[in-house]
């Protein structure tokens, strides 16, 4: 009668090990995407706000395409485009393609959040800095950006939480992140345990991200 239970616990360490390895891939996608998309979103936001049509229009098209098509489609496109369009080899390109697609996609969403934050700063702040002799870049980095950071924390926390779950989409181009491993294990073991464990991993990640953002919001709550 105890047999199934013994079987279950016997299989658990190897399952955990597999999922842990997948989780490391998930985390790499998560952190690399943030590393590249957070800074990339800034020029995109500034381009979107540009007075010059020739800068603004292409950025508007970029945002339309990225936000108007599924991330899954973008993953497939970024992965296969070099092969079909230029005949380049696909070997070793899976993971870089994932990072490129995720970075472009998240940069688009972050850019719109940045723009909202930038436009919410009263004109008087720019004028006060200008009159005091701040240059454009000094005004931006000393006066505007710190205030923008505070204002965009809530929408940013939303996007970052979505990102940790979106990493599951990388399986579309057969990247072995945690979700794909869990899904395969469900079939192989005829058991729900793998996806329950994966769910717990996602939950714990989200919990820490939320804590981090709450901490940042508290730290910046010293002014309005």
């Amino acid at each position: 009668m105890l047999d199934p239970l013994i079987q279950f616990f016997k299989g658990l360490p190897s399952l955990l090990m597999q999922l842990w390895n997948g989780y490391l891939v998930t985390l790499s996608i998560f952190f690399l995407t943030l590393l590249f998309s957070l800074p990339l979103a800034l020029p995109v936001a500034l381009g979107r706000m540009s007075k010059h049509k020739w800068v603004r229009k292409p950025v508007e098209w970029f945002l339309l395409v990225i936000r108007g098509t599924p991330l899954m489609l973008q993953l497939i496109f970024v992965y296969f485009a070099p092969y079909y369009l230029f005949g380049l080899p696909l070997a070793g390109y899976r993971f870089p393609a994932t990072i490129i697609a995720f970075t472009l996609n998240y940069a688009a969403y972050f850019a719109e959040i940045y723009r909202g934050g930038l436009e919410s700063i009263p004109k008087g702040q720019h004028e006060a800095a200008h009159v005091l002799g701040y240059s454009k870049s000094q005004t931006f980095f000393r006066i505007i950006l710190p205030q923008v950071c505070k204002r965009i924390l809530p929408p940013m926390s939303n996007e970052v939480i979505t990102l940790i779950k979106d990493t599951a989409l990388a399986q579309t181009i057969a990247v072995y992140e945690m979700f794909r491993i869990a899904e395969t294990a469900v079939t192989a073991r005829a058991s729900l345990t793998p996806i329950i464990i994966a769910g717990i991993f996602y939950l714990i990640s989200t919990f820490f991200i939320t804590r981090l953002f709450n901490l940042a919001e508290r730290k910046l709550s010293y002014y309005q």
Partner: protein
Amino acid sequence: MPVLDVQNAKKAFGDNEVLHDISFHVDQGEVVAIIGPSGSGKSTLLRCCTTLETLDGGSIYFGEDALVQATPSGGCAYSDRETQQRIRRRFGLVFQNFNLFPHFSVMQNLCDAPIHIAGIGREQAMAKATELLQKMGLADKADAYPCQLSGGQQQRVAIARALALDPEILFFDEPTSALDPELTGEILQVMRQLANEHMTMVVVTHEMIFARDVADRVIFMDKGFIVEEGDPRQVIDHPVQDRTKAFLKRTFGASKGLDQDME
């Protein structure tokens, strides 16, 4: 040589001509009040002098430095960036809405530009800031943030911030218009004190009594023209022009209990 010299200033927003050929000057230690109905161009004039708007024609000089010079074709040419930057060191501006930096403490608001923009040493900048806060009656607020202060206190910090860079001339753009009536007095008090210390000031204001009592000269503007200019007691108590009379009648008619005050 006047501290500020504006000659034939012209400015239009599209078809709307806001300044027609405005000329005036401000001498060392003088307090000039600019009054007039809203839409008269007085704020635009101030914003042109403080590089927040650009003129379409005419000249503006700060001492020997030209901010902008008229060209023979009727337009005007702005000076290079270094000159403009030098000129910004010569004046200070106090806004209607204070425009303090909310993420900086009062002390940082006063010291950030002197230290990081003007290159004054930290010790020296902080000593100056402390002295200014004392003068403004805000010595205990150095570590407070703008959101913790009343409107009147915020405006006093804004005046201190403008003074921290040792300007030769201080511009005020309706400095009491965003304040509750009971807080207006504390700002006017500070400005009176500055006038007594012979600070050169240009004040766009709706406070007629302040203009009459403190200013050395009053300029009345309407529809982009200087209608009347001169000694405050003459312009405000005995205006010559009909437009000035009509404006003052409206203004004084609107505020009760002013007659006693005028005696």
